[in-house]
């Protein structure tokens, strides 16, 4: 086999070990794709959470309001034969030259190929106190804790009006609890759906009775005997038994600190999701910062979405097995949200420079968002992004057009030099 490999077999053979760090959507799909493409060696998936791979999007959706139980969110492992799932284990450090990982159990794990899919961690804003009743929502344990805490709470304050915050607010109100949502902007989900649709969704949420504090920031949070009291910058206070902070997240890349990889914001990758500066390492999921051709610019960026994570995991697996000749991964960002009867769907990129065409499906209705509305983002005469609320048919047509669109010509991606060796300047003279 080794002989075959030397004359052009796959980059990884049956004696190699590929380690997938992260058992989220990206790691799950990467492991499955590796097996599906015929990788016959050892495949180890390491996940920090002590549970089987599950559907993380359910944490802010079905798990909170009880429509799903944790066992309903378990991902299908039928397409993942003979993968060693090492859950509840963290990777602490990486030796990229010996190709070894150091685990928190003290073991070292050698790898031949590595898939970085460690995802993100939820973080509290700086200066926030912690304590019982203050929740973040990122993984299954968080969702379970929040779900059990919701049983005894009547009023919940949610800090941060992004996608997660809105979904939590809708789940809380669907459980007949009252929710207060504090958002620093004047409309909800500014980054996810853009301004025009965000304003319409905000109006729909206000009409359905959600308590929104828009344009406010939390100046101070203090624990009380029965809950928390939030002091907003406008001077008003919000008292609630529970506080859910959905303010930020941070890529989980500390274990790559001793490698030449650029981990300033996620892991910098090239267009094929190879980690810049490391051999035999690819990245996928919300941790990967890569230049997408479809995005139109060379600027690498991270995308933290479920479908994107799955597709990136697949693309990363292909890249790993294809070696140097992997095609660039050009993927269409897509996500969805179901908020209190508003089915929000987004695909493509919502750029600031684009012209936005908003189409109401039923123009006479006053509740525009609920009746159906589509926003097309057009840049230089090309459709680059679509946001739709309660308009799945129109969205599907537009999204398929985007998917079928040929990807623009390759962008020359400059990979920074992996590391600096000032003391070894003579090396370069040899070259």
């Amino acid at each position: 086999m080794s002989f075959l490999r030397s004359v052009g077999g796959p980059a990884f053979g049956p004696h190699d070990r590929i380690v997938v760090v992260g058992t989220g959507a990206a790691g799950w799909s990467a492991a499955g794709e590796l097996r599906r493409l015929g990788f016959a060696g050892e495949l180890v998936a390491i996940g920090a959470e002590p549970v089987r791979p599950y559907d993380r999007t359910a944490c802010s959706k079905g798990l909170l309001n009880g429509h799903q139980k944790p066992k309903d969110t378990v991902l299908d492992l039928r397409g993942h034969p003979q993968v060693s799932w090492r859950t509840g284990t963290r990777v602490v450090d990486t030796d990229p030259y010996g190709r070894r990982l150091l685990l928190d159990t003290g073991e070292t794990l050698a790898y031949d190929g590595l898939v970085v899919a460690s995802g993100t961690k939820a973080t509290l804003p700086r200066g926030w106190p912690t304590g019982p009743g203050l929740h973040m929502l990122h993984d299954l344990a968080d969702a379970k804790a929040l779900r059990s805490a919701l049983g005894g709470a009547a009023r919940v304050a949610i800090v941060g009006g992004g996608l997660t915050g809105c979904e939590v607010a809708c789940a809380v109100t669907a459980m007949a609890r009252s929710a207060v949502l504090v958002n620093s902007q004047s409309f909800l989900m500014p980054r996810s759906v853009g301004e025009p649709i965000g304003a319409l969704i905000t109006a729909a949420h206000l009409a359905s009775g959600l308590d929104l504090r828009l344009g406010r920031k939390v100046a101070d949070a203090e624990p009380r005997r029965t809950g928390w009291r939030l002091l907003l910058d406008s001077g008003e206070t919000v008292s609630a038994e529970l506080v859910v902070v959905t303010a930020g997240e941070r890529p989980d890349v500390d274990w790559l600190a001793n490698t030449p990889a650029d981990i300033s914001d996620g892991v910098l990758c090239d267009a094929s999701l190879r980690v810049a500066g490391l051999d035999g390492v690819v990245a996928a999921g919300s941790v990967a910062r890569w230049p997408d051709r479809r995005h139109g610019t060379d600027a690498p960026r991270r995308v933290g979405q479920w479908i994107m994570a799955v597709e990136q995991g697949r693309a990363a697996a292909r890249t790993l097995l294809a070696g140097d000749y992997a095609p660039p991964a050009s993927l269409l960002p897509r996500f969805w949200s179901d908020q209190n009867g508003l089915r929000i769907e987004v695909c493509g990129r919502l750029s600031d420079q684009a012209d936005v065409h908003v189409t109401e499906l039923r123009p006479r209705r006053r509740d525009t968002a609920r009746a159906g509305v589509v926003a097309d983002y057009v840049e230089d005469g090309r459709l680059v992004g679509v946001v739709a609320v309660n308009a799945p048919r129109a969205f599907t047509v537009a999204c398929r057009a985007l998917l079928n669109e040929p990807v623009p010509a390759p962008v020359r991606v400059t990979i920074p030099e992996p590391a600096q060796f000032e003391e070894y300047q003579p090396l370069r003279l040899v070259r």
Partner: protein
Amino acid sequence: MLRTAQDSVHLIAATIGFVSYAALWAGTLWGTVLRSGWATSRLRHQTVHSVHMHVILLGLTLGIVHGIVQMAAPYGKVRAIDVVVPFIDRADPIGVGLGVAALELMIATALSVLVQRRIGYARWRALHSLGYLSFTMVAAHLLISGSELYPAPVRTAIAASWAVVILAGISTVTHIARLPRAIFDRLSPRHRAEEVTVAVDPGKCGSFGFCEQEAPAIFTLRSDQRLAYRSVVPSDQAEAAMRAAVVCPARAIKLGRLPATVVVSQPGADTTTVAPLATTLTPHTGTQPAVDTHADPHAGSLARMAAAVDQGTGSHPRPAMTDSGSFAPVGTGPQPRVPASDTGSFPRVGAQPRVTDSGSFPRVGTGPAADPRSYPPAAVGQHTGPQPGLRPVGVNGHARPPAVNGHGSPLPAVGAHTGSLPPVGSVPTNGHTGPQPALPPVGPVPANGHTGPQPALRPVGPVPANGHTGPQPALRPVAGPARAPQPGLRSVGRRAAADPPPEDALPAPDQLQDTGRHHLPRLRGIAGGRS
């Protein structure tokens, strides 16, 4: 014939009672339809729901009237308290009591809709299924105290109607609902294994339409926002169906018979030489020496998981498949040792000199001897049996120590260094060039119980020789830019062999126009939206 007042009252009460029973029967049956999602392909969910609610309300109202009318009979046997408190009736305590209890239980079940959101959906479902119990009690009330029920056909009809409701209720349980399909699959001919079955849970489907984006030939979101799909798709569309199942926001798509590629061992490999992957997963029989130095704290969960994952030969997971906990000071050669205190942590990468990125792991083709993958296969087969222990000591401080087979001998050459042996000639010093005595190895190699196939002990040439602590010996000029694709023959062969399938098989433009709505042979339709 002149009826007595008592007879008239009884006639009215009995008639109302029968009509009430009929309404409750229809309403309960309709509730199972609502639960199973069968009707959602034909009717709107809201319609089904309101029919269920109104028919049940009618039955309950008539049931209350039935109870009140009983009190109107002169010289009546039924007191006011008898129609409120069950089982205290003097004439017929069991029969009347069952009716009263059933009515009250059913009213409570119906009223539980009001607190559905507060108690949560799952708990409400459990509470609401008390309706089957109360309906059973109503049927028993009829059979016990119904005065017109002596003819056997009438009794049979009542019993049959009750049985229909209970069977319909049982059939909505998820596992039982899947049973017919599972049985059918088991009995169906083999060639159907090439097809993939698609089932969309109508209760979950939110009609987002993401499935149509991925697989327009299978799924079609109709203009009335219901989803039409093929229930059986050929294997060439299985990939699209799998993608659709993954992206479905509601996770409503279930695929049967996934066409997964299961790679168990190399085709044609000599199992005495190369341990197939399956061997490493066979259950460990017999006594195992307790070599496993790492009690895996996650062994339990891992075992469960592996049992769920494993489709093949065994259900026993690999033991901790990693190396030992700390770096073995393998430097018995001339190079400086890794300090003994430095166990468990990596040397700081930034502190060590390195060549550029391709320096540590030579690409295939950069040097004939530099790549352990390019050894002729003659090496395979020479190193069978117990671990030959040809450690690359002195080559590379980071080479993994040979696995001490923690399971004694029964595993044939697990992790034998087939294809990954370091070149004997290029191993600098330490003298281990001949066949080695197997165990123990030279250095204090910790036993680690590693049974997986050993990855290639790769870095042979330009690798820092000693665990990144000493001066860099291999100042190898790197030819060309690191990321440039290797030109020449190799790229052709490699591309041909290893190119992944085209990126995403996007549907052709002609598929875009034809959504298949009119041509799909086996269409199922479901509506969107849950309650």
